[in-house]
């Protein structure tokens, strides 16, 4: 955590110095007030000098106002600094993740990355905010308080040697017990919420199997478990404040007792007893404040660790170090040479020794079972993943040598799930080409077989799309995703199992319409249905990451066992042919 704080607070060090100075002034002023009060008693009350009392009173008044101004300025700077801290960490995290490869995204997990970019930063930002004031003010006040108390009377100050360690010991013991309980509680809250989430997601199944009461028992179990732990934590906390208050009050009682003796001896003026009590209060309250702030530390440091882990991961997809010496030909010829791909830490390769050439103007279909590496292969082309062996070349240039923006400009991608962004139908279709005209958008929708349902929407292109496109059916989402790709008019089309949510009729019409559009382009289609790919120029059969056959449907039916198996199973299922 320290490293993260140092890195991001260093640019603000001038402001931090100002804050520290301001806090120092506050601490001194705070400590000076009781001493002035002691003067009022010693010099004014005891001698009956009302003029003195008023003079010193005026000084105290002035000091209080100055103190107020100083703390407002401090709040200004600390709020600004901590919020800037948050803004900068968030910004860097976001940019950093943008450079991640797909496998990095998956190894962190998208939901986790989202939490790290939002909640975790928030946690840390709050710690900085509170820390900037409390963590600095509390020690200064405590130390200053000890010094001032000793100035009032050294002998009496020895009381602090007993009190402060006692207080710290008590708090330490409580924290020692409370922190594991806190952690356990968080886990149990997650568990309770997890059961609820599961119940909401599976409500139809639960009711269909008449298991509502079973689920209620499961929930009750988690709920009892959580309540037990929560009760332990709150009961522990029930003890903290009364104990600390008791220590503080008994210290004051002791102060009066010992102070009384000192006053009787004449070794201490009576006003100092007042000042001394104020210092004790200040010291002990700062210790308490510091501790309360410390309570935030374990949680924030867990957050910091999670943020650090992301920032320390080197983005796998890096811009090429040197610029291309010749401009890219932009023909669309793709060549895979002995390509290997293996996820970090995985035992087996996903792709093994794959060599292929995809010519412009042809449609290449990739088929194979689950886990055969079809999607991985597609993701290697636009460098969503990088090969772990061999190379991918486009128009003769290794993709790793092509500037990223230029590389991506060649592609149109339709991923497996028709993911849409919050906005409108229009904004989604224009996603890759913001300057597309309405006509171009409608043309793309027509080809994608989406015109029909968009026409029915009262707002047409301006019809709102919820985040993730949840207000549309799977087939509608997929068709819009295809339109989004078409409107870009890319050189290379990548369809990653993009037709699965469509019924056969729509699928056929769509592919018919695409055919004229993709003339002269390089088209890669990953598919499950044989009917979808039978008309491809070439079919590549993947089996366990290796190329098991390449050829047309008819070739493969004769030569490729794996392909025959796939086709046979489907054809018999379709009951056609």
């Amino acid at each position, binding site marked *: 955590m320290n490293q993260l704080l140092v890195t991001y607070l260093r640019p603000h060090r001038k402001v931090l110095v100002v804050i520290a100075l301001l806090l120092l002034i506050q601490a001194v002023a705070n400590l000076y007030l009781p001493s002035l009060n002691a003067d009022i008693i010693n010099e004014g009350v005891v001698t009956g000098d009302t003029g003195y009392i008023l003079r010193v009173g005026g000084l105290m008044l002035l000091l209080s106002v100055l103190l107020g101004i100083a703390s407002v300025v401090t*709040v200004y700077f600390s709020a600004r600094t901590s919020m800037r801290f948050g803004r900068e960490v968030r910004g860097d995290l976001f940019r950093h993740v*943008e450079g991640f490869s797909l496998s990095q995204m998956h190894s962190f997990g998208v939901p986790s990355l989202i939490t790290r970019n939002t909640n975790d930063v928030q946690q840390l930002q709050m710690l900085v905010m509170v820390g900037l004031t409390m963590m600095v003010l509390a020690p200064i006040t405590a130390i200053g308080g000890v010094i001032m108390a000793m100035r009032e009377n050294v002998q009496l100050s020895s009381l602090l040697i007993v009190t402060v360690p006692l207080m710290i010991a008590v708090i330490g013991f409580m924290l020692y017990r409370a922190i594991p309980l806190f952690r356990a509680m968080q886990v149990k809250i997650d568990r309770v919420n997890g059961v609820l989430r599961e119940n909401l997601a599976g409500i139809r199944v639960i009711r269909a199997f008449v298991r509502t009461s079973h689920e209620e028992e499961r929930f009750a179990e988690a709920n009892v478990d959580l309540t037990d732990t929560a009760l332990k934590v709150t*009961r522990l906390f029930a003890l903290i404040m009364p104990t600390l208050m008791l220590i503080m009050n008994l210290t004051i009682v002791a102060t009066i007792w010992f102070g009384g003796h000192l006053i009787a001896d004449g070794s201490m003026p009576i006003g100092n007893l007042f000042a001394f009590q104020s210092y004790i209060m200040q010291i002990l309250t700062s210790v308490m404040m510091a501790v309360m702030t410390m309570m935030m530390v374990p949680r924030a440091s867990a957050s910091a660790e999670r943020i650090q882990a992301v920032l320390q991961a080197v983005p796998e997809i890096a811009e090429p170090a040197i610029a291309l010496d010749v401009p890219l030909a932009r023909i669309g010829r793709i060549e895979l040479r002995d390509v290997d791909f293996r996820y970090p830490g995985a035992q087996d390769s996903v792709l093994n020794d794959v060599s292929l050439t995809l010519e412009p103007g042809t449609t290449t279909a990739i088929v194979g079972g689950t886990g055969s590496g079809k999607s991985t292969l597609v993701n290697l082309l636009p460098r969503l993943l990088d090969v772990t062996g061999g190379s991918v070349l486009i128009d003769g240039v290794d993709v790793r040598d092509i500037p990223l923006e230029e590389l*991506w400009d060649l592609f149109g991608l339709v991923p497996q799930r028709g993911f849409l962004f919050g906005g409108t139908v229009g904004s989604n279709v224009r996603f890759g080409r913001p300057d597309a005209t309405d006509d171009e958008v409608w043309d793309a929708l027509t080809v994608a077989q989406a015109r029909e349902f968009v026409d029915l929407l009262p707002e047409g292109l301006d019809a709102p799309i919820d985040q993730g496109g949840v207000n549309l059916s799977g087939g509608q989402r997929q068709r819009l995703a295809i339109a989004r790709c078409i409107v870009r008019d890319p050189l290379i089309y990548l369809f990653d199992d993009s037709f699965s949510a469509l*019924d056969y009729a729509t699928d056929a019409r769509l592919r018919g319409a695409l055919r004229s559009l993709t003339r002269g382009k390089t088209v890669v289609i990953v598919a499950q249905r044989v009917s979808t790919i039978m008309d491809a120029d070439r079919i590549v059969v993947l089996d366990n990451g290796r190329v098991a056959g390449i050829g047309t449907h008819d070739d493969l039916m004769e030569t490729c066992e794996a392909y025959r198996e796939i086709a046979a199973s489907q054809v018999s299922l379709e009951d056609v042919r």
Partner: protein
Amino acid sequence: MSQRTVSSPPPRQGGMGGGPMAGLQGVSDEKAQDFRGSLKRFAARMRPERVIVALVIVLAFASVFLAVLGPKLLGNATNIIFDGFVSSQLPSGVTQEQAVAALEASGQTDQASMVASMTLTPGEGVDFAALARILAIATIVYVLSSILSWGQNYLMAGVTQRTIYRLREEVDAKLGKLPLRYFDSSSRGDVLSRVTNDIDNISMTLQQTLTQLITALLTVIGVLAMMVWISPILAVISLLTVPLSFAVTMFIAKRSQPHFVAQWKWTGTLNGHVEETFSGHDLVKVFGHRHQSIADFDEANERMYESSFRAQYISGIIQPALTVIANLNYVAIAVIGGLRVATGSMSLGDVQAFIQYSRQFTMPITQIAGVANVLQSGIASAERVFELLDQPEETPDDDPSIPLDAPTGRIRFEDVSFRYLPDAPLIEGFDLSVEPGEIIAIVGPTGAGKTTLVNLLMRFYDVDSGRILMDGEPTMGMRRDDVRRSFGMVLQDTWLFEGTIHDNIAYGAADATEEEIDAAARAARVDHFVRTLPDGYETLLTEGASNISAGERQLLTIARAFLADPAILILDEATSSVDTRTEVLIQQAMAELRHGRTSFVIAHRLSTIRNADVIVVLESGRIVEQGSHDELIAAKGAYYRLYRSQFESAVDDGE
């Protein structure tokens, strides 16, 4: 795979602001709508704890009373010291009166009156016996006060935790009683947020506010009483700070509120943007949207910074402002108190006690202000939970209900009408007779609302008019559980819970033996792939079960249905993103499962459709045709068109 089960979803139920952000933001930042009403209602929920709450209040009274007594005792102790100190300054042998006279004579009138007001024995020192006595009492008072305060906190911890426990229980039970219509028509994120975030927030609120509120209120009253008792004039000065503190707090809070609202709004926007960009990571890159996405992020990030900085800064002024007021009060007491001691109208110990009281006085006031803030947010959450608890439940089952002991699978729809929305008729006057063992294929284009029939059959929704009969008896008169028990369901939405594969299969029947589970697994073709997993049947499925493939998940749901051994089946044939070999297994398993049972199949395969006894054709959620394959082909209607397009696409695919 979150396939929507309702083709034309009814509008979201109002009142919660809807929108995609509503779920994201979690706990609402809006103010409670009926603060008093909801507060009362919430207080009523603590009724079972009323005896303990009463005890807590008694303890709080006692503890606060003792704590408030403390400074006065210490003040008396100070007086003893001061008296002793002044006495020792005076020559021994003279009386107090003589000392006063001497001072007056020397012109020190103020000091004279001060000394006159003290109880002095000139020449004597501090009376340590008296001091010890009073400090001993103070010690006992403080110890007792702390013990009582601990007891009060301890009991209150139980009250809050049990109250939250009951609230969770009640909400969970409520979820079990709500009709499917509620879940289909409200966003899952929003419901989830109510049952998790909002309840967590209420729990936090209860823990933070309840004890603080009781003690703070009592302390204010007790301290005020002590202050008035010691010195009415100083008490008036301290009292002036109360409305001043409140006014300042309100003034500042009002100005920071819009910034807080903006902060939450931009937090929501930012979270939404991050979620979207990370989820659509591949698209953002390949579609060249990276710069735009970063620019959008920066914009939201900057705005969030601006608003949160202002919110934090402005609200951060409250504390220093209150400190200034408290310090002014302190100075006023020190000065006026000093003057009064000097003139003898007040003792030094009382001034000291007063200073302590005034400190004790400002703290609970700040606390109450803070509690009011937290309470606002807590009640807003409580309101959202109450809203859920107030939703109409499923109509109770008839009592006595029509028994359904051994369903044969004979089903009749008689003149059934149903609509999700009052003005959008879906099913009108539908009749259908199904004999045991028959196959009914439900066909229609993507999104035609094929699951509506499932909803009615399983009584997830009730028909508006007409009847559905099972074995000649209307299902409306039966217990929902009995009706549902006679069905087995294998849907595209393959819900599995977090647990082992074994337990997920066993979910189909609560009392199944190991042999039965084994047999079901084998029949559903899951045995083979499970055995290839390192932990076999004990493999733990994680949430969303990403450690097995979509096809394997579906096989598990088939095994679950096998085990349930229902008379009637509901199957969804759609198997997107399933590789072909697994698909073969799924088809085989489904065929075996169908054997000897009445089956409603949401059909995607021509073979199933052609073999079906009845085909029900849907278009945009409506039943447009029914009959056998040959009848429907002859009719040249919707089915004919659909069949042609499917047949053509499948056969003439190579152009």
